């Protein structure tokens, strides 16, 4: 009870409330504009949040993260263009419903499913983060090293069909993390005698380049993608209850989202894929999927929106980010010397409670905003994507130059922007670069500590039960992907033989 009251007093601060509303509302708007997305917005705002207190900064960024998935459903349903990449499956059933004159019904279903997914994941975060942190309080360096390694393995394995490409970009990110002055022995690593490289490769120019600038280049070099949405009539309240007519789909998809969100590196794509597949298999009308099935829409949206809060579980409990957006948020913790992990729950309970309550509140704010402002947001789906590209580039200046007053940082961001642009054109994932850059130093420090304790004996990683358990998870994931690939190759061979 004391913790809840402490959390309420944290949430009641005017700057936290402003961050809550600003983050939630701008998140929805950002999600609704195809081509923008939360990664771009968070990368742009990240340097500015360093000046805020940690709860305000995280509330703002989490509002954008959560709100964008809600907002992304709007263009997915109305103009068959997902607002964010994770709303792809929403187009499968949302757009056919629009074509059938049921746009308002589809939007209402998406909102209520997203809301349930969001609330379920916050409840799971509240229920799981503390027990997991209690377990993690028994962790030593060996376990933290293996947890970081597990996050790396899972982020590669999660890129189905692009495992090799993901491994390459992860290794690239891990290498970038080694550049600079190695503090233990004051050794320069790959600095080429350049003073500006001694501090290492900074995160901000990398994320701004990879996510924001590369996206700006894509938008500036491609034709305008904006579409003409249909006119919406009627109110959105009426359809909200319909999602609860499919409780099995609604709650199992939320559960999938939570589970996949907790697993480092997995995230929204696999969550919605598995939820959608399961919903289709268990549906009484599987043939309707892809043609306007309410269950398909529910599965996709509930799973997507269950991920953001769940993704905070490994970050808060272990200090290990599972994907790019929480990796960026880890930097907010670090700037303020708030170290996520087991000790945070003991030393800053009011911060943890405040974070939980702000997550609950932002889902409510987002839903209410959507119910009243959808028609206004729909207009934003029509913004010319070339203009968005120009604006993204202009916005990145604040993060690259004015945050460091150093011409090297914008130039570095431009180089990463070009790298990101080329990788995107070839469908090579960029998220593992950021995870490698963030997880690399954690892994190196913990590996050294663990092996130092064990006198260099690698057996420490299998002798300690939690560490061995994490290794087992990695082994299962790798065997699983190997078997899946083998089955896929066999299916392809059979299909080729039939032709």
């Amino acid at each position, binding site marked *: 009870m004391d913790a809840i009251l402490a959390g309420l007093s944290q949430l009641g601060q005017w700057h936290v409330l402003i961050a809550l509303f600003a983050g939630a509302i701008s998140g929805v708007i950002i999600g609704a504009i195809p081509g923008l997305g939360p990664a771009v917005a968070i990368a742009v705002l990240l340097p500015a949040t360093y000046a805020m207190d940690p709860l305000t900064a995280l509330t703002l960024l989490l509002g954008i993260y959560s709100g964008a998935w809600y907002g992304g459903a709007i263009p997915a349903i109305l103009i068959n263009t997902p607002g964010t990449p994770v709303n792809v499956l929403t187009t499968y059933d949302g757009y056919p419903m629009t074509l059938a004159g049921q746009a308002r019904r589809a939007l209402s279903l998406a909102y209520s499913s997203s809301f349930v997914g969001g609330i379920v994941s916050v409840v799971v975060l509240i229920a799981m983060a503390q027990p997991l942190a209690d377990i993690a309080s028994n962790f030593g360096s060996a376990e933290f090293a293996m947890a970081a390694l597990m996050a790396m393995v899972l982020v590669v394995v999660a890129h189905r069909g692009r495992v090799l490409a993901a491994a390459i970009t992860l290794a*690239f990110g891990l290498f970038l993390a080694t550049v600079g002055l190695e503090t233990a*022995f004051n050794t320069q690593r790959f600095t080429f005698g350049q003073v500006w490289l001694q501090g290492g490769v900074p995160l901000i120019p990398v994320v701004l380049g990879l996510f924001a600038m590369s996206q700006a280049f894509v938008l500036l070099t491609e034709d305008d993608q904006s579409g003409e949405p249909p006119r919406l009539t009627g109110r959105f309240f009426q359809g909200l209850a319909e999602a609860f007519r499919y409780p099995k789909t609604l709650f199992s998809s939320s559960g999938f989202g939570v589970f996949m969100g907790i697993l480092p590196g997995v995230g929204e794509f696999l969550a919605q894929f598995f939820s959608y597949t399961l919903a289709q298999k268990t549906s009484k009308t599987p043939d309707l999927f892809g043609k306007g099935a309410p269950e398909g829409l529910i599965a996709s949206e509930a799973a997507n929106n269950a991920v953001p809060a769940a993704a905070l579980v490994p970050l808060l409990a272990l200090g290990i980010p599972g994907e790019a957006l929480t990796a960026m948020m880890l930097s907010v913790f670090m700037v303020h010397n708030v170290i996520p992990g087991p000790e945070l729950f003991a030393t800053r309970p009011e911060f943890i409670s405040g974070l939980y309550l702000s997550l609950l509140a932002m889902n409510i704010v987002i839903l209410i905003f959507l119910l009243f402002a959808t028609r206004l947001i729909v207009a934003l789906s029509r913004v010319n994507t070339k203009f968005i590209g120009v604006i993204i580039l202009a*916005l990145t*200046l604040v993060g690259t130059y004015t945050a460091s007053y150093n011409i090297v940082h914008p130039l570095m961001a*431009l180089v990463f922007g070009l790298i990101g642009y*080329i990788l995107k054109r070839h*469908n090579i994932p960029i998220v593992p670069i950021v995870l490698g850059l963030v997880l690399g130093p954690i892994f190196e420090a913990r590996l050294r500590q663990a092996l130092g304790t064990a006198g260099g004996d690698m057996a420490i990683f299998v002798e300690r039960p939690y560490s061995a358990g994490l290794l087992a998870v990695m082994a299962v994931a790798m065997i699983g992907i190997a078997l899946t690939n083998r089955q896929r190759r066999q299916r392809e061979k059979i299909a080729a033989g039939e032709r």
Partner: protein
Amino acid sequence: MSAFDEDTAQEGVPGRTVVALFFFVFGAGGLALMPLQTGTSPGDEGWFTQPWLMPLLTLGLLTAVSLLFVVKLWRDGEFARAKTSGPALAGEIWIWLKSAEFFAWYVAYIVLLGLIGYGLSTFLFVACLGLRVGLRQPKWLLAALGATLAMVLLFRLGLEIWVPPADLYDLLPKSVAVFLQRYF
């Protein structure tokens, strides 16, 4: 094509072979440079404390997986396709180089920032780059003005982001210069 057939999502775009080779050369080159670009710890604290360990592991991993990727692309026939579709590959590389034009725009924006201040340089950047990419109707000039005002309000007034002093403001009366420097 399903949303998850990621291997084939960009099938029409050549150049993956160049990307794969780039990472292989980057990894192998890094490994070759290791004796020059990393060091050895002076004491005998163990192999795991050596500063070269992580660069060795990461560059070794990068070289190995990019080699596997190169082999995969070779077996899938992408190298043969790239060879026969030379103009398409050259076109793809030309697209990469063309995107470097934005380097120049961005550097010009940074230079202008120090000369004429954040607000004016942002407006010029948004308006001129908009014109360059085909946004030529008057409404886009208005949009550029609106976007600039929004950015000034957010970053200069709201978040109080510091920007370097603009040379142009030195030519104005001091009170105006101080106001513009602080808020614009």
